[in-house]
């Protein structure tokens, strides 16, 4: 299929593509309005309105005034789509309500030689962060170019100097002559204009919208009417439903199933097997992110007219599995002990960071603090269970997927089917929560593998909640052992941190934080327990979410050993670090949280701080600190009274979006620390639903106060979703210690008996 943009795109790949688009000529993909509603024979070539102008692959303006923005990063609830349209709004000044977002198509990206992914990274939520400099520049340059063309066209028509023309609310106006007309009057003329040079985006000082206003997410009107189409809501003509079951012991294989037992159940059409791919399969297309292609797991799926029928039949289907070696783990205690043995043993493992001579310093004696910690497997439990929809034929594949990484899902479909990449399209749908679970896109691949065996019809594969929870890519089980020697001032002179986990566990957030960087003698090393069979992945703030618990609980233990106030101790410690943001955040917390003011018996405040994304550098990433005001009643139950959060991401673009992300991160961080734990019995994951995986609810949530006074105004806009995942848990643990004298060194906290006799 030839499209109108291709030719122009080859002329100026990263520069401007301005073309007149006839009906059917534009590439409108994954519309946020109605992805699933109109599916034609070549569905991803759906029409833009007659006479629309496409100013670069980033925006199109339609004759009805709608401005379509092609967004390269899926919105998983954090608002990057709104951020992208905000860039356009800043430069182009259309009516806000005329802005409409479409997801950029990975198929188009491929055919146009990575027109999108060359700018700011893959078509993915995380690496293509909406506030990253290159992406912002691309959007703003495109919008500025469109604006200047429209002004030039109007200037020519009105015989006035384009520079004197102003734009606002989708209209062009020339004050002196009194001319005033909508953009749409000049679309065709603007398309013919060449600018040399292309205009630069406005410098920050001239922004009137970005950073000043805080628009809510543009998709909210759809959400509140129940009209947002999530992956699980995709409905296509003749679609059938599949219910999936993968080997209950990870790494196991299907032995057999007995389709005859369910053949006659209502609506049942087929049962198909998903056979794992060869481990060494060559890549059929370059994976867009250096994870490599996620492998298939052994599975069986029942296909029926309705999901309920498929699921009921799957439950009734006799299946035999060959469980594989994972069954050796009789229970989670065995795995915990293996991880603890790894950190307390002598094996040095992989040295991540080393400076000075730790052992010699520790051997000097004096006050030596030592502690061991453990964090469990946790599941993301995105509210939308995993699912994907695919039509596979011999030479064509189309998938609809609620992913965090559209381009990866597309690549997975290519990889799984071997169909030519230009004939494979992946539609990004709304996403019912990401949190890292939907990055690797193995779920997209499973859906394609199922549909492959029921070709020619759209197959909608749903993981039940139980299947989603038991086939997670979990936050890894991790153990840590920390030892420190304190100097005369109470601050550490040596620190040894050893962490352990299963294959591929995250060490992010251990060696790259301020703590190891402000001590003279440090060693951080990591030991892998190689026979853990449970698959792990990236869970909001990977590595950092456990590491901050280890480091910042330990800092509290050091402060206690030194007999110092935990917050003052941190200020003394972190003032040695080159990034002033740390102390600024701590001071903001001290001032705003009423730190030090007396509380009734049974209540206390705890503090913790960390940085997501600093990677060992100053003035990088987002520093985030929290003070948790907690109560422990005589029964040992934790009640939260309030949480103060301060942070330094350099600058912020949309204050309310930042606030929303931090609130969400605080709540998820709390839930992780207090409640979450995936366990294993005979190799199988036990927990399958919320009854065994408790979640905080509205009544459990205290006042969460987000303070902006920690911002250093350093020239960066850093991330917001992950940062609170680090400090909230340890801040709570530190508060609980202050109340009860009980130090919680393992998560989840709900497993600790905190009864302490009450406020006598």
């Amino acid at each position, binding site marked *: 299929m030839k499209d109108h943009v291709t030719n122009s795109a080859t002329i100026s790949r990263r520069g401007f593509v301005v073309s007149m688009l006839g009906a059917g000529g534009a590439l409108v993909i994954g519309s946020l309005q109605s992805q699933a509603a109109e599916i034609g024979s070549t569905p991803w070539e759906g029409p833009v309105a007659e006479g629309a102008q496409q100013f670069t692959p980033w925006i199109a303006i339609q004759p009805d005034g709608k401005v379509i923005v092609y967004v390269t990063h899926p919105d998983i609830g954090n608002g990057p789509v709104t951020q992208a349209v905000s860039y356009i709004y800043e430069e182009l000044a259309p009516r806000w309500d005329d802005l409409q977002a479409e997801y950029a198509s990975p198929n188009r990206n491929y055919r146009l030689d990575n027109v999108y992914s060359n700018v700011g990274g893959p078509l993915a939520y995380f690496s293509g962060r909406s506030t990253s400099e290159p992406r912002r520049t691309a959007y703003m340059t495109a919008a500025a170019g469109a604006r200047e063309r429209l002004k030039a066209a109007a200037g020519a028509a009105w015989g006035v100097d384009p520079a004197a023309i102003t734009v606002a609310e989708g209209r062009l106006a020339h004050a002196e002559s009194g001319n005033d007309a909508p953009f749409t009057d000049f679309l065709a003329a603007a398309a013919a204009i060449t600018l040399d040079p292309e205009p630069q985006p406005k410098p920050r000082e001239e922004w009137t919208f970005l950073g000043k206003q805080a628009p809510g997410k543009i998709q909210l009107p759809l959400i509140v009417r129940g009209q947002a189409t999530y992956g699980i809501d995709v409905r296509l003509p003749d679609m059938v439903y599949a219910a999936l079951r993968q080997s209950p012991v990870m790494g196991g294989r299907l032995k057999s199933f007995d389709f005859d037992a369910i053949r006659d*159940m209502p609506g049942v059409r087929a049962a198909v097997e998903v056979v794992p791919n060869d481990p060494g399969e060559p890549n059929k297309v370059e994976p867009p992110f250096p994870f490599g292609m996620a492998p298939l797991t052994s599975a069986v799926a029942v296909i029926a007219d309705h999901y309920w029928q498929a699921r*009921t039949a799957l*439950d*009734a289907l006799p299946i035999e599995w060959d469980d594989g070696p994972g069954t050796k783990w009789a*229970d989670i205690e065995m795995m915990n002990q293996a991880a603890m043995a790894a950190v307390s043993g002598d094996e040095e493992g992989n040295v991540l960071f080393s400076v000075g001579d730790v052992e010699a310093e520790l051997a000097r004696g004096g006050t030596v603090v030592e502690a061991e910690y453990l964090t469990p497997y946790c599941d993301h439990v995105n509210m939308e269970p995993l699912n994907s929809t695919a039509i596979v034929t011999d030479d064509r594949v189309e998938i609809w997927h609620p992913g965090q990484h559209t381009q990866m899902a597309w690549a997975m479909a290519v990889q799984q089917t071997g169909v030519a990449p230009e004939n494979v399209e992946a539609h990004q749908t709304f996403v019912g929560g990401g949190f890292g679970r939907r990055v690797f896109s193995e779920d997209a691949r499973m859906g394609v593998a199922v549909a492959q065996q029921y070709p020619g019809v759209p197959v909608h594969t749903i993981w039940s909640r139980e299947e989603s929870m038991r086939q997670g890519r979990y936050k890894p089980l991790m153990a840590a052992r920390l030892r420190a020697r304190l100097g005369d001032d109470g601050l550490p002179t040596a620190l040894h941190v050893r962490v352990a986990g299963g294959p591929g566990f995250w060490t992010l957030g251990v060696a790259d934080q301020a703590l190891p960087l402000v001590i003279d003698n440090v060693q951080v090393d990591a030991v892998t327990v190689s026979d853990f069979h449970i698959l792990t992945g990236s869970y909001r703030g990977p590595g950092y979410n456990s590491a901050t618990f280890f480091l910042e609980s330990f800092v509290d233990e050091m402060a206690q050993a030194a007999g110092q106030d935990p917050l003052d101790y941190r200020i003394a410690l972190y003032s040695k670090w080159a990034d002033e943001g740390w102390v600024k955040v701590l001071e903001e917390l001290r001032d705003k949280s009423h730190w030090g003011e007396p509380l009734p018996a049974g209540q206390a405040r705890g503090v913790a701080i960390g940085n997501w994304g600093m990677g060992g550098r100053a003035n990088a990433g987002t520093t985030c600190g929290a003070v948790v005001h907690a109560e422990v009643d005589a*029964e040992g*139950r934790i009640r939260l009274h309030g949480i103060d959060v301060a942070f330094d991401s350099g600058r912020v673009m949309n204050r309310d979006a930042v606030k929303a992300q931090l609130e969400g991160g605080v709540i998820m961080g709390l839930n992780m620390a207090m409640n979450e734990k995936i366990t294993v019995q005979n190799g199988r994951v036990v927990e399958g639903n919320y*009854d065994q*995986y408790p979640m905080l609810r509205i009544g459990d949530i205290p006042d969460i106060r987000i303070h902006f006074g920690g911002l250093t105004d350093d020239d960066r806009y850093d991330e917001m979703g992950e940062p609170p995942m680090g400090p909230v848990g340890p801040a709570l643990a530190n508060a609980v210690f202050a109340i009860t004298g009980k130090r919680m060194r393992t998560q989840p906290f709900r497993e600790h008996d905190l009864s302490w006799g009450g406020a006598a």
Partner: protein
Amino acid sequence: MKTFRILLVALIVVIVVGWWYVTRIPSSPFDGVAQAPTFTLEEGEYVARAADCVACHSTEDGKPFAGGLEMGTPLGSIFATNITPDPVHGIGNYTLAQFDNAVRRGVLPDGTRIYPAMPYPSYAKLTDEDVAKLYDYFMHHVEPVAEPIPESDIPWPLSIRWPLEAWNVAFYRSGTYQPDPAQDDLWNRGAYLVQGAGHCGSCHTPRGFAIQERGYDEGDAAFLTGGLLDGWYAPPLRNGAVSGLGNWSEDEIAAFLRTGRNRHGVVFGSMMEAFNNSTAFMTDDDLQGIARYLASLPGESSNWEYDASTTDMLLAGDFAEGSGAEIYLQRCSYCHGRDGLGRGEFLPPLAGAASAVAPHADSAINLVLNGAGRVVSGGVPDSYRMPPFRIPLNDREIAEVLTFIRSAWGNDASAVTAEQVADLRERTDPMSDRVIVLQMR
């Protein structure tokens, strides 16, 4: 000296006769039968289903009838035997008479007495024909499994089995079921199934000091008046009281056994297993017979009446923070309703439900802690399982919500204490060292 000698001889005689008695092989109507009769697979399987042999003689992950299920006795744990036709580990070398002695009299071919964890006092009522069908089924239609079962951990001398004969003398009654001519055939068929193969009394009849059932047929006042076993309270199966089958019609009893549910409730706990393995496979006629028989058993009269004031109170939010009513509203009412009436056959009522007004709250506590398994009807697991609240609710909360339920909508049962919940929480936790070991089924 002479007296001594007489005494000695007498003693020897007593010992010899006694020893003979406690180790003797009882006689069987099949003694000397060389060629056991054969039957179809279905005929034998039906009796095995009715007797629910698989419930004890299999483990969850093991092969059918290969044994291995741990069962508790007052002396220690024993393990259900391998009853597949494997000649070494199973019963492949049993004659029909030997098989009969094991099933109906609790005696192994070498004279060893079987612990009465095996319900042979009930199976004693089986007809000769049903025993022959069972034998044929196990010999010819069950896959042999060459797997040993674990050794019992009962230490010597407690592991000596012959004293069990004393138990038999005291409690065991021989003889197959004798129809009551005053009753119709349906009733008699039901009585035969309930007392014999169905061994309903194993759970539903209270047990005496020697863990014997306090009654094996309707002639005993205690028969099927409810029993506590393995952390569950099996309610009375007699007519009358709300905590029994008082509100249930014959058809409803039959439907319960056929589909696992009716408008009064759904099977759970050990009854769910009995349903999934046994009653779900029985014929309508047999189930109707059981219903007829149970409905004929007299019980106390009921005076329960629905009281809507609880519903009003829940709607008005008129209750204290953290109270049982509040927990009910948040955790239970979405399924069981603010009116406590459930929804049709799928979501059982709690108002006036046997499980909610039972004199012992064990089943209710167990169910709230651990949830219900899935009822398998027609090979299809059902969709409306009760989730476990072990994690979300603590002992006090479970006690409060159950106390509320047991006194709401006209229910009038005793309060539940946090200690009761704590005890069952521990004893149903597989990781605990006080975990309940099944005793009888």
